[in-house]
């Protein structure tokens, strides 16, 4: 569909092409075709057709005989007829009977392929009983795709708008949004997935890139600690409030023997195998300390470890309008 060789494609363009291609597979022919169409019969005169085309401003029409599609007549056929000064002949003398059709429940991409391989301007669309239900042109496809693209764009805008206004729109004494993620032990493949979801959620809610980045780094280190060290995995719990973000990881062991020692940059209990992957630099907790405003570690060999990290948001960084979303006279 796109000539890649002659036109260098930027990332932005590539993204759009992919989107349009995706839509071409998603949209069905019967969602973009024209249903209300003028049809003619084989016995109609070409003069009748000429008037019809002019009145309806169309450049082609399917030919039906007792409801059966038997041909198609285009403006080129009409021109041939006009040149021969033969307007009183019947449609069946000039119509094309080599029919290329598409099915109404096929994706739009099928019609596009057909247009590419055949020099036709319109395609009759048939239902499962091979009855004519509409006509599709390249213009129909372009309009359909554009409409769909605009809709999707608006929906994403609405989604971001809704998310970023969550804290303004909901009034309560104390509003917060809680995100939870279950983390499996030794699941290195998915390491960082929860962190990136959290970062994305914060961005959608309207957090500044700096805040989202600090949260992302801190929660990544905590997430990797669960994957590397915890016996049975653990839970990440993030609570987002207009003025602060609280991130917690909870596991049930084995616990940290000496928290002060664990906090020292460079100290690590990671296995050789894990170190080979580049983990266990002994910088995890040190990194977290750097990124958050408050870090509390509650760990014992019996109960496991609970990490609580807080980032406080300044007035201009807070979610929503921090004055408007709380009830009067409440803390």
């Amino acid at each position, binding site marked *: 569909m796109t000539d890649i060789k002659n036109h260098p*494609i930027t990332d932005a363009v590539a993204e759009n092409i992919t989107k349009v291609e995706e839509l071409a597979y998603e949209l069905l022919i019967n969602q973009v075709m024209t249903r209300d169409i003028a049809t003619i019969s084989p016995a109609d005169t070409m003069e009748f057709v000429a008037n019809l085309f002019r009145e309806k401003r169309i450049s082609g029409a399917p030919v039906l005989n007792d409801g059966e599609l038997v041909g198609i007549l285009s403006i080129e056929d009409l021109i041939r007829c006009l040149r021969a000064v033969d307007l009183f002949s019947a449609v069946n003398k000039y119509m094309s009977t080599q029919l290329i059709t598409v099915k109404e429940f096929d994706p739009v991409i099928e019609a596009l392929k057909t247009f590419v391989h055949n020099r036709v301007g319109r395609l009759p669309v048939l239902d499962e009983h091979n009855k004519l239900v509409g006509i599709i042109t390249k213009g129909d496809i372009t309009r359909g795709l554009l409409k769909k693209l605009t809709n999707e764009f608006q929906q994403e805008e609405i989604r971001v708008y809704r998310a970023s206004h969550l804290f303004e729109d909901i009034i309560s004494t104390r509003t917060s949004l809680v995100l939870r993620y279950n983390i499996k032990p030794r699941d*290195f493949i998915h390491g960082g997935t929860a*962190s990136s979801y959290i970062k994305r959620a914060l961005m959608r809610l309207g957090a500044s890139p700096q805040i989202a*980045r600090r949260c992302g*780094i801190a929660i990544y*280190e905590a997430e990797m600690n669960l994957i590397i060290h915890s016996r049975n995995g653990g839970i990440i719990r993030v609570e987002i409030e207009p003025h602060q973000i609280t991130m917690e990881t909870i596991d049930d062991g084995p616990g940290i023997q000496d928290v002060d020692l664990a906090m020292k940059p460079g100290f690590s209990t990671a296995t050789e195998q894990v170190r080979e*992957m*580049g983990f266990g*630099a002994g910088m995890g907790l040190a990194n977290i300390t750097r990124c958050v405003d408050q870090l509390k570690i509650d760990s014992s060999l019996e109960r496991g470890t609970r990490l609580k990290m807080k980032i406080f948001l300044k007035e201009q960084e807070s979610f929503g309008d921090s004055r408007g979303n709380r009830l009067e006279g409440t803390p």
Partner: protein
Amino acid sequence: MKLNEITQKLNLHQFTNQEIGSDDEASLAYCSDMLSCVMTGAGHHSIWVTLQAHQNIVAVAALLELTAIIITENALPDEATIHKANQEGIKLMGTSEKNFEVCGKLWEIGLRSS
């Protein structure tokens, strides 16, 4: 400096299948094979030089919004890693040279520590 230029001058190949556009640039770089150190040290939009090639390098690069990762000494990222990098828009580049050599060359063409 444009990523295109860096790719050419260091003779890198790309594992991912992303178009390197004119707005892909980096002026800073960071080198370490320890992920937590990268978390601390690598700044926004910098290039990360490492011989690690497993899937987690993409998670780190995405969180830090790095421009590209240069994987050294012919280390090979697997399919899943490349796929994830494409999804996240992180460019994975490869070279047979060692970390030290790559960093030397990056410095020579004007990149600085992030």
